[in-house]
């Protein structure tokens, strides 16, 4: 005999009827609460799974010494350049902590993001599939994007914990009396956060697509190495490769490490993160036919590619460096804003010619920020330019504005500005009372850093791991 309060089907029917009776708004609010509760529970589960992931603890353990090596070396170099141990005070006077300390210290994060974080992400995403837990979890009516989103959020939180190592470096630097310019430090952190996001999204997508974690690891590293190949090919061939290389994680991080935030780079990185997570969400749906998943993936890639092409048209950028390393002097920028015509520059320099690199990084990258309509064309017959030196026009830089042309061979910022002023009929502006950045020399040794990063950090991580595994065992 069935007791009414225990009748599953009666309860189920009753629940459905009461939901219908409550009407659509009530049901929507109730299901939203329920969905949020389930998501919250899933977040807790993912965090717990991360806590029991050996890969994450290894990442955490290695992070301290990695950051320590970079930080200690950077502080020593900075101190020597600032006059420590009787060395001549040279570049230290114009030394910025951004270039001297933060870029090398945080480069440890780049290394960890490329070689350690993917394994943590793959473990978190593939673990459920390997153990069979995914077959249970997939029967909850939660969207697959929410599932992947929970994993990504937890991985990002795990990355924040690992980032306590570079945070310790910031505290140490401050304790030495070092200068901190928050906007440029925040820019470096943003760059590495986006890079970690890209790694997590890529690893999640590969882990969802492939059946086995080792395959996912190989695919993830293949994509990472692929972006390095793009950088390499861009350095040799230039052209469209050079444009593509500007959006690889390595190039992106490098720009952030120089205190430059480019809207197009941020948008494209965000789009790639979103695409990676969506791809993971598509492939995690084991109950959907493979053909349908392939079709959905193709649609996603098409939409993503279109979105990324659209993002390349965003020209806004912000120079957050204290030294204005990515900008011309303010007087020059004001003068350049008066040039309304379309400036076209044709540089006869090969991709591997060091002068081309000088021209690009010292002048043109700054010029593009002030003159978004600037058109630059590189002309060369070979990649290294060694055998073109005697060719007519090689090494020349032609400037054209409203039909007028001037030619120059100078690749410095001053030389480029001079040519443009001559072409536009402007007088060279005077800087006036604008204070020149003199840097923050600091001649102190990295006292206590070795203890923090080589002893304290590993001991803390090992202790926490021991406690955590013992708690779960």
């Amino acid at each position, binding site marked *: 005999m069935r007791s009414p309060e225990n*009748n*599953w089907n009666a309860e*189920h029917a009753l629940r459905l009827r009461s939901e219908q009776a409550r009407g659509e708004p009530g049901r929507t609010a109730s299901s939203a609460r329920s969905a949020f509760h*389930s998501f919250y529970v899933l977040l807790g589960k993912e965090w*717990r799974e991360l806590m029991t992931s050996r890969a994450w603890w290894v990442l955490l353990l290695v992070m301290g010494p990695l950051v320590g090596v970079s930080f200690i070396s950077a502080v020593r170099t900075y101190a020597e350049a600032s006059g420590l141990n009787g060395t001549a005070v040279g570049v230290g006077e114009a030394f910025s902590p951004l270039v001297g300390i933060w870029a090398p210290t945080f480069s440890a994060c780049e290394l960890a993001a490329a070689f350690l974080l993917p394994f943590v992400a793959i473990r978190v995403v593939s673990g459920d599939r390997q*153990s069979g837990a995914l*077959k*249970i979890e*997939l029967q909850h009516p939660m969207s697959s994007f929410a599932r992947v989103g929970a994993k990504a959020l937890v991985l990002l939180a795990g990355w924040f914990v690992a980032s306590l190592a570079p945070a310790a470096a910031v505290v140490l630097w401050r304790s030495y009396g070092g200068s901190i310019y928050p906007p440029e430090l925040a820019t470096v952190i943003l760059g590495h956060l986006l890079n970690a996001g890209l790694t997590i999204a890529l690893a999640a997508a590969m882990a969802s697509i492939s059946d086995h974690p080792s395959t996912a690891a190989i695919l993830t590293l293949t994509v990472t190495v692929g972006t390095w190949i793009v950088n390499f090919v861009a350095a040799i061939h230039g052209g469209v490769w050079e444009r593509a290389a500007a959006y690889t994680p390595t190039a992106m991080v490098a720009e952030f490490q120089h205190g430059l935030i480019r809207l197009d780079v941020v948008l494209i990185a965000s789009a790639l993160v979103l695409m990676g997570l969506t791809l993971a969400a598509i492939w995690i749906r084991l*109950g959907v036919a493979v053909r349908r998943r392939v079709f959905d993936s193709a649609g996603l890639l098409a939409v993503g590619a279109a979105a990324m092409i659209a993002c390349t048209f965003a020209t806004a950028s912000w120079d957050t460096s204290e030294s204005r390393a990515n900008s011309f002097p303010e007087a020059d920028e004001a003068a350049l804003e008066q040039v309304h015509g379309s400036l076209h520059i044709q540089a006869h320099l090969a991709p591997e010619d060091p002068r081309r690199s000088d021209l690009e990084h010292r002048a043109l990258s700054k010029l593009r920020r002030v003159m978004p309509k600037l058109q630059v064309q590189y002309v060369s017959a070979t990649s290294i330019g060694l055998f073109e030196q005697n060719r007519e026009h090689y090494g020349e830089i032609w400037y054209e504005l409203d039909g007028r042309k001037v030619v120059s061979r100078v690749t410095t910022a001053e030389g480029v500005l001079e040519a443009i002023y001559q072409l536009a009929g402007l007088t060279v502006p005077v800087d006036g009372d604008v204070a020149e950045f003199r840097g923050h020399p600091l001649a102190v040794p990295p006292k206590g850093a070795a203890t923090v990063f080589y002893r304290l950090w590993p001991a803390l991580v090992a202790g926490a791991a021991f406690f955590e595994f013992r708690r779960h065992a």
Partner: protein
Amino acid sequence: MVHATNLTKRYGRLTALHDVSFSIREGEILGLIGPNGSGKTTLFECLGGVLPLDGGMVLQGGRPLTASDRASSLFYLPDGIAPWPSQTVRWALEFIANFFGSSFDVRRSSSDAPPRTPHDARRTTNGVVRDLDLEPLLDVTIGALSKGQRKRALLAMGLLIPRPILLADEPFEGLDLRQSRDVAQTLRRHAAGGRTMFLSIHQIGDAARVCDRFVLLSGGRVCGEGTLPELSALAAARSGSPATDDLEEVFLALT
């Protein structure tokens, strides 16, 4: 209650399920019987939405069961999995209960703690943990459980998920005789409470002990569906031999 019609599943050129049709009635224990490789797990994975179907449909109340309907109507408990191996049984049961919407606390399951709301849910938890003899295992990690212990922990998860139909793949696999009997009793008790059970079983003796009706599957095709007398009559009609109440004989005659 639920009708599966012409379910078909292919793996490349291999057809694992050929136009499989059957019914699941409310509150019954339906046994899916078939030899290894007959398509039992494939059928369950398709019903559970873990594998895509290539053809056919599942109807409930005459209407096709959508993916979201399915998520609220049935739950498929896979065989041979060790979910969340580094977590304890206690945590897994709590997670399952919270994630799938039954709000109860396993920490109080084995104690005489005062009742919590919802009362029924708490009672169910206490009962499931006790019936499946999981109290000594609550603080053991799932990865450290033996096959039989893991099977009981998985069954507890399945029974805690508040869905009217439970599809359990090989629920007696890895259990000893005493445990098999205990599990069979637990399943019967839940079925008596109105919950429908669909069990995939390859040991015919286990199936005969616990199931009300049977679906016989062989080579991805349904060879018969009904109670033991109905199947026996069918077997007798087909083979021309006298009817028997031995399920093994009936199975051999029909497959």
